[in-house]
Structures are given as structure tokens and as C-alpha cells.
């Protein structure tokens, strides 16, 4: 079964440094999402792409977070500068058109020290 690939699996960085996460969705899935999950809570949507276009980034802290999906396939989420409160699991998901379920990757666990 095809999977959503994410890297790195774990990342430790110092506050004020820049960090980037990469996601490769399931082939053919036009919609891609980035979620953030703080320990003990459910995932919260940061940004949603349809092909290369941003559909919803209302919850993305734009002063420090940026996301791109230049060719409408893989995507990168960047944080600059990282803050202690950014420590969380960053999950990528993709879905085909319609009311199809989301397929999540196994995330990148970020620790900011």
C-alpha cells in the first residue's frame, strides 16, 4: 500500500535556528496538508494545498512558518526562527479528490532546545 513519506523522522534544533521538513504524498493525490500535533492533543491543520496552490493557511503562523509545493507534488514546511513552543509532531497528509479519507505520514518529531 502506498504511503506518505516524511523526513526527517526526528529533528533537534536550538531556538532561533531554521528547520525544514519534507513530505512526499501518495502519487496522484492532489491535496496535501500539514498538521501540527502537540503531545497529548489532536492534530491541528496548518496549511492545505490543492496542487501547487494554497487553499487554507489561516492557522499558519506566517511570521515564522512557510510552506511550499512548487511543482504540485512534494512539499516543504519551514520554521525560521524556531521557538521552544514549536516542539511538536509535524504531520503531512494527502488525499485524492472528493470526500476521501486522509492518508497521514508518520511525521517529524521536532524538539527545540
Amino acid at each position, binding site marked *: 500500500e502506498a504511503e506518505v513519506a516524511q523526513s526527517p523522522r526526528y529533528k533537534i534544533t536550538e531556538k532561533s535556528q531554521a528547520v525544514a521538513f519534507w513530505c512526499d504524498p501518495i502519487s496522484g493525490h492532489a491535496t496535501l496538508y500539514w498538521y501540527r500535533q502537540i503531545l497529548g492533543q489532536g492534530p491541528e491543520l496548518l496549511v492545505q494545498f490543492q496542487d501547487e496552490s494554497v487553499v*487554507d493557511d489561516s492557522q499558519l503562523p506566517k511570521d515564522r512558518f512557510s510552506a511550499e509545493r512548487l511543482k504540485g507534488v512534494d512539499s516543504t514546511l519551514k520554521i525560521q526562527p524556531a521557538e521552544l513552543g514549536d516542539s511538536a509532531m509535524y504531520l503531512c497528509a494527502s488525499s485524492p479528490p*472528493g470526500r476521501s*479519507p486522509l492518508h497521514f505520514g508518520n511525521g517529524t518529531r521536532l524538539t527545540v532546545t
Partner: protein
Amino acid sequence: LAKTTQPISMDSYEGQEVNITCSHNNIATNDYITWYQQFPSQGPRFIIQGYKTKVTNEVASLFIPADRKSSTLSLPRVSLSDTAVYYCPLNYGGSQGNLIFGKGTKLSVKP
């Protein structure tokens, strides 16, 4: 935005049927009810989705009453490997993927 409420935790024993209920009083007409399972250090995994009445697949059943203000996920004969957190996010804004996840229900299955 429609919010969901679930029990924080539930305990069960192997071989029992487990029913997890989710309340969603403000569900919108176009919202579908979805359930996801999450193991530690993994992303959520889709279990089942429904709009009304009953839906059944190879792993679970989903019961939705006529008013759609709640739903119940039923797991038949659970095993230790069903120990996980279960979420019932609603699709809001008419855009698939804008799911609002609550804190979920942590199910612990004991031998």
C-alpha cells in the same frame, strides 16, 4: 465550527466489544463523520466514515442516529493491538481535509 466531545480514556479487556461515543451537537448538514486511530509516534490512520445510520467495514462499525448529534464507533472483539487513541474529527467548511481533531479517546486493552 463544529466541535467534538469524547471520553478522555476507556479501558477494556481482550475479546470484548468496545463502543466509543463522540458528541457533535453543532454538526453541519454537509459534514461527514470520520474516525481515525493513532498509535504512538505514528500518524492517524483512517478507520471509517459515515453520514447517517450505520456503516460497517472489515474493522469497525459506525452508528449515527437520525439527528446526527453523536456517533458511536464499535470495535468488535478487541485485541491488545487495538490500544491506541481514537479521534472523531468532523469535516468543516465543506473542504475535505479541514478536520478538527479533539483530544481523542485513549483506549487501553488489557489481557
